[in-house]
């Protein structure tokens, strides 16, 4: 019951903070009193807070990996190759579902641009519900670009219902298709090394990101720090690419909660110490 009460408190604090930071950001207040404020304000975001334009390039400050995703569309199209986006096996009904949704938001610019140029990426998933979501996003990108007729059903592919089989089978795409870039972004564990290994064998350019330690550990040696999106950074993709106030508000709320967690850990430490001393004194 205490755990549920604490969780409810965190949810309520988060919701209130999200509303406040979101509104403040929407009003264009740049100075937010957070020591670790990680974000700049979008340069050309409309005052209404709505999505400024289909293009994500209206931002002055963008994390390089997210910006690079959309840059890859042009580069790869010029080379007559394709982009493979591996979204992992994070189904919507599990804890990893939010990781998958965050990954798709980080890919929004890539999807929009690909739809506009009618050069869709191969998107692969290892979960049926995630397949539907990715399909909906790509289809929506085509609809926004006014090119729904150009949408191809096989651009998003469900590969296999198990992470290992998914990674092994999706890795064969690197050999079969003429790929220029491979983006492994989503819920991955160590099986992602099968994907990176296959891509490296074909000299395909690699980007990636994961939320789990095993996934990151497998990605880091081949991708390096600069092109790797690590843990919580993955959830910043929406803010970086889509740029709505709610996304920036989320990042500020995360910072607030971060400090609350630090305080909670220190308080627990003090309680733990004082309890022992009191027991010793008694």
């Amino acid at each position: 019951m205490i755990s549920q009460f604490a969780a409810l408190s965190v949810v309520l604090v988060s919701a209130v903070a999200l509303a406040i930071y979101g509104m403040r950001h929407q009003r264009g207040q740049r100075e937010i009193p957070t020591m670790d404020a990680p974000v700049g304000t979008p340069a050309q975001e409309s005052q209404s807070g709505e999505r400024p334009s289909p293009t994500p390039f209206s931002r002055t400050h963008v994390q390089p990996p997210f910006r690079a995703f959309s840059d890859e569309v042009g580069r790869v199209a010029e080379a007559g190759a394709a982009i493979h986006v591996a979204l992992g096996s994070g189904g919507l009904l599990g804890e990893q579902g939010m990781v998958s949704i965050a990954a798709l938001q980080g890919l929004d610019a890539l999807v929009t641009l690909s739809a506009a140029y009618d050069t869709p990426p191969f998107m692969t998933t290892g979960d049926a519900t995630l397949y539907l979501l990715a399909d909906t996003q790509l289809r929506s990108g085509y609809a926004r670009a006014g090119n729904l007729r150009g949408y191809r059903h096989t651009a998003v592919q469900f590969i296999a219902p198990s992470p290992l089989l998914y990674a092994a089978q999706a890795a064969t795409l690197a050999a079969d298709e003429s790929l220029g870039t491979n983006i492994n972004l989503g819920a991955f564990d160590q099986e992602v090394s099968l994907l990176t290994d296959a891509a490296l064998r074909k000299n395909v350019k690699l980007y990636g990101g994961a939320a789990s330690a095993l996934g990151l550990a497998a990605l880091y040696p081949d991708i390096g720090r600069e092109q790797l999106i690590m843990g919580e950074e993955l959830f910043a993709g929406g803010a970086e690419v889509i740029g709505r106030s709610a996304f920036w508000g989320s990042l500020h709320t995360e910072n607030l909660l971060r400090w609350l967690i630090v305080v909670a850990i220190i308080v627990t430490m003090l309680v733990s110490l004082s309890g022992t001393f009191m027991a010793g004194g008694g």
Partner: protein
Amino acid sequence: MQGTLGIIVGAVVTLIIFSYLLGDNVLYRWALALLVGSAIGYALGVAVDYVREWIVMSLLEQDLAVSIVYAIPLLLGILLLLKGFSPNRFLGRMGIVGNLALAYLVGVGAAVAIAGALMGTLIPLVIATGQLLDGPGLAAVAQRLVAAVGTILTLLYFAHRPRTVGSDLEPRSWISRSVRALGGAFLMFGLGTAFAGAITSGLTAMVIRLSLIAELLRPLIGQ
């Protein structure tokens, strides 16, 4: 006999999968296709079985209210199936109605994820990190202190944007720079241990597979 045959089949599949180490080849692709096909068929079979059971229960139900409870997900499921049609056809254009069912999945998934993340990870981790005096001796306290400091620094590492463009976004103070550097060090060291763990689990699987093959070969080589 059946057991031996099973081990032989398993060993053959294992060897074909291992052949990938020599390079991508046709046999590997065939074995992989067999595995993927089997996994998809099994998962779908189980899903069909589950839905069939649900439909049978709904048909047997006498109470109208309970029947509705059974019918709603089936109705949503049918709406979801509309998303499978090409957007160029009439049924495909109706696929937008399937967004209702997808939205339901997303909404429930969000709630499950929040509850799991808070009650299954956040609260237990904060408590576990804060408990300094769980083991005997000063060394145990020191270890827990190191882990707690590492947790805090790593958490703060993510508060900074290490790769933002523009000087006004870079952390300015030496304190924040130091915190980030130390947090990054804890994180990379932790990832290194996870990397070792991943290799160890892979090696364990390899040893198990190879020992089964060796077991199979033993009578053949007369040992």
